[in-house]
């Protein structure tokens, strides 16, 4: 009987010949990622009684959640992290001018086929787009890996999606992943590994694929894996890959818990309405909802392609006078590329505010928190009550095209009207 990707890779990483779904294994991750929460992790680490981290080369820290620091608390938090990094000789440390962790890790070569990456952030699932096994863990668990180099994981069952068809104009991978989440629900893939396959995925760029893997956790999934192909290998050829690439595929006769087939030829733009990600609506149902703020960026949709889509729509136009359009490129690399391409000029002329790469208001920390009763349309991945810092505000999620068109009109609008 064949094995899934999850079973094969967790066998390798736990030093066993084979494991099967349901089993508990102790793995040695290739990398453990954390961000601004590294200060809290360092405190937990110290409480274990270890003096120095056991595996400095495996630790990756990116300052991104509130960067630059918005207050004394955040500033002191960053300071603790910088001191800890220096004391422990942690080389894979990325300062506040680098970008959002889920963009930085792929850019810096930590996301590659066969890598096992555990991150103290739920959207660590993003690296599945590169054929890695990557998932979120808690702070104590990150501290445990710093101290021991290992952690227990349950080998998950796998759900396979087979997605075929050509995406219509004005419809993007964000719309696809929202459709999936709307159909199977926020717990539709609870504790499961999810594999995304089919010619729609094959045709997608890495940026588009990352949107889907990023949001796999919003359906409850442990990982959002895609079979690495030429596009992944070409990307890796251009960068300094930090580990040994080991291509692991599911066997042809692997046993899946479920196989779900979809055809996207007639897919339409989707929007998640407040206050849950799986409250997914067709654009027609929410069209006309007045907005106060539009957010373009984040670890979900802050890549160059996303900014290009928005720029194409916003070129020569002005955003509505009642709307604030905030742009957060996912990394400084993307920021520079967008600057060079003239994207910023287009966005600025349209009335946007370009902010530095970081998580910004996505988790309610700073740079665009909402007021009571306000509505935001965002390319981010979560719209929970209070998510953007105010429990009396309303967040809708959509594609970069939906956000750009809505910013112009001052209300949620159908991006297909533009094309």
């Amino acid at each position, binding site marked *: 009987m064949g094995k899934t990707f999850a079973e094969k890779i967790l066998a390798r990483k736990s030093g066993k010949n084979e494991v099967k779904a349901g089993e*508990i294994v102790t793995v040695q991750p290739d990398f453990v990622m954390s961000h*601004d*929460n590294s200060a*809290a992790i360092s405190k*937990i680490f110290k*409480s*274990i*009684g*270890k003096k120095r981290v056991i595996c400095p080369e495996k630790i990756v820290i990116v300052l991104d*959640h*509130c960067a630059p620091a918005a*207050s004394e*608390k*955040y500033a002191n*938090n960053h300071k603790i992290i910088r001191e800890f990094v220096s004391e422990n000789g942690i080389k894979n440390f990325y300062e506040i001018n680098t970008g959002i962790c889920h963009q930085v890790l792929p850019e810096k070569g930590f996301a590659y086929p066969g890598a096992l990456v555990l*991150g*103290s*952030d*739920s959207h*660590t699932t993003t690296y599945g787009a590169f054929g890695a096994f990557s*998932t*979120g*863990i*808690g*702070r*104590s*668990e990150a*501290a*445990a890996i710093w*101290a*021991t180099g290992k952690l*227990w994981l349950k080998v998950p069952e796998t759900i396979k999606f087979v997605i075929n068809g050509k995406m219509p104009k004005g419809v993007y991978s964000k719309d696809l992943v929202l459709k999936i989440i709307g159909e199977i629900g*926020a*717990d539709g893939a*609870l*504790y499961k590994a999810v594999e995304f396959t089919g010619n729609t995925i094959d045709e997608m760029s890495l940026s588009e694929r990352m949107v889907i893997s990023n949001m796999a956790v919003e359906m*409850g999934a*442990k990982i959002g894996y895609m079979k690495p192909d030429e596009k992944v290998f070409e990307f890796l050829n251009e960068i300094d890959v930090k580990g040994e690439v080991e291509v692991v595929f599911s066997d042809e006769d692997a046993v899946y818990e479920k196989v779900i087939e979809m055809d996207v030829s007639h897919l339409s733009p989707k929007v998640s309405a407040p206050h*849950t990600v*799986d409250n997914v609506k067709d654009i027609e149902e929410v069209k006309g909802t007045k907005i106060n703020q539009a957010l373009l960026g984040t670890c979900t949709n802050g890549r160059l392609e996303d900014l290009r889509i928005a720029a194409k729509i916003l070129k020569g136009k002005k955003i509505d006078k009642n709307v604030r359009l905030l742009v957060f490129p996912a990394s400084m690399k993307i920021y520079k590329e967008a600057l060079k391409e003239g994207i910023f000029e287009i966005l600025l002329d349209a009335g946007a505010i370009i902010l530095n790469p970081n998580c910004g208001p996505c*988790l*309610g*920390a700073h740079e665009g*928190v909402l007021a009571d009763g306000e509505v935001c349309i965002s390319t981010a991945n*979560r719209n*929970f*009550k*209070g*998510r953007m*810092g105010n*429990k009396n505000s309303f967040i809708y999620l959509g594609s970069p095209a939906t956000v750009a068109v809505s910013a112009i009109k001052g209300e949620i609008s159908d991006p297909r009207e533009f094309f």
Partner: protein
Amino acid sequence: MSKIKGKVWKYGDDINTDVIFPGKYTYTITDFNEMAKHALEDLDPEFSKNVKKGDVIVAGFNFGCGSSREQAASCLVAAGVGAVIAKSFSRIFFRNAINWGLPAIDCPEIFDHVEKGDEVVIDLEEGKIYAKGREFSFPPLRDEVKEILMSGGLINYLKKNLEEEK
């Protein structure tokens, strides 16, 4: 630790980490007692004011979905919650709860049989919950996981093991 007795606080499906412990506090509120005051703030403002030590949360599917923030579990511990019983748990929340020594119990059956304020008794060893004269069973935790829970969480478990290694 093996027996937990308290009153029920009942909530629905998909209770997410932002309503359990808001993201805006994740770096600004770090004191344990202060965290307790904000537990479930955006869901039920009455909770933190009235919760008693040992009280039990009974919830629907996918409890704790969303962020990996560990405070979603630790703020409940800080508030004195004895256990969370749900129809199902989000993966990371489940781990965080166990890692904080907070029993996260999968028992869908009990949901329709208890209301807010009912008293429940949980026997972790036996894998039983007693409420309103009825008995509910839940599957035992895996040994590896149970050991962490019974040690009072992951950090205590590691301390114990590192001590033994010395």
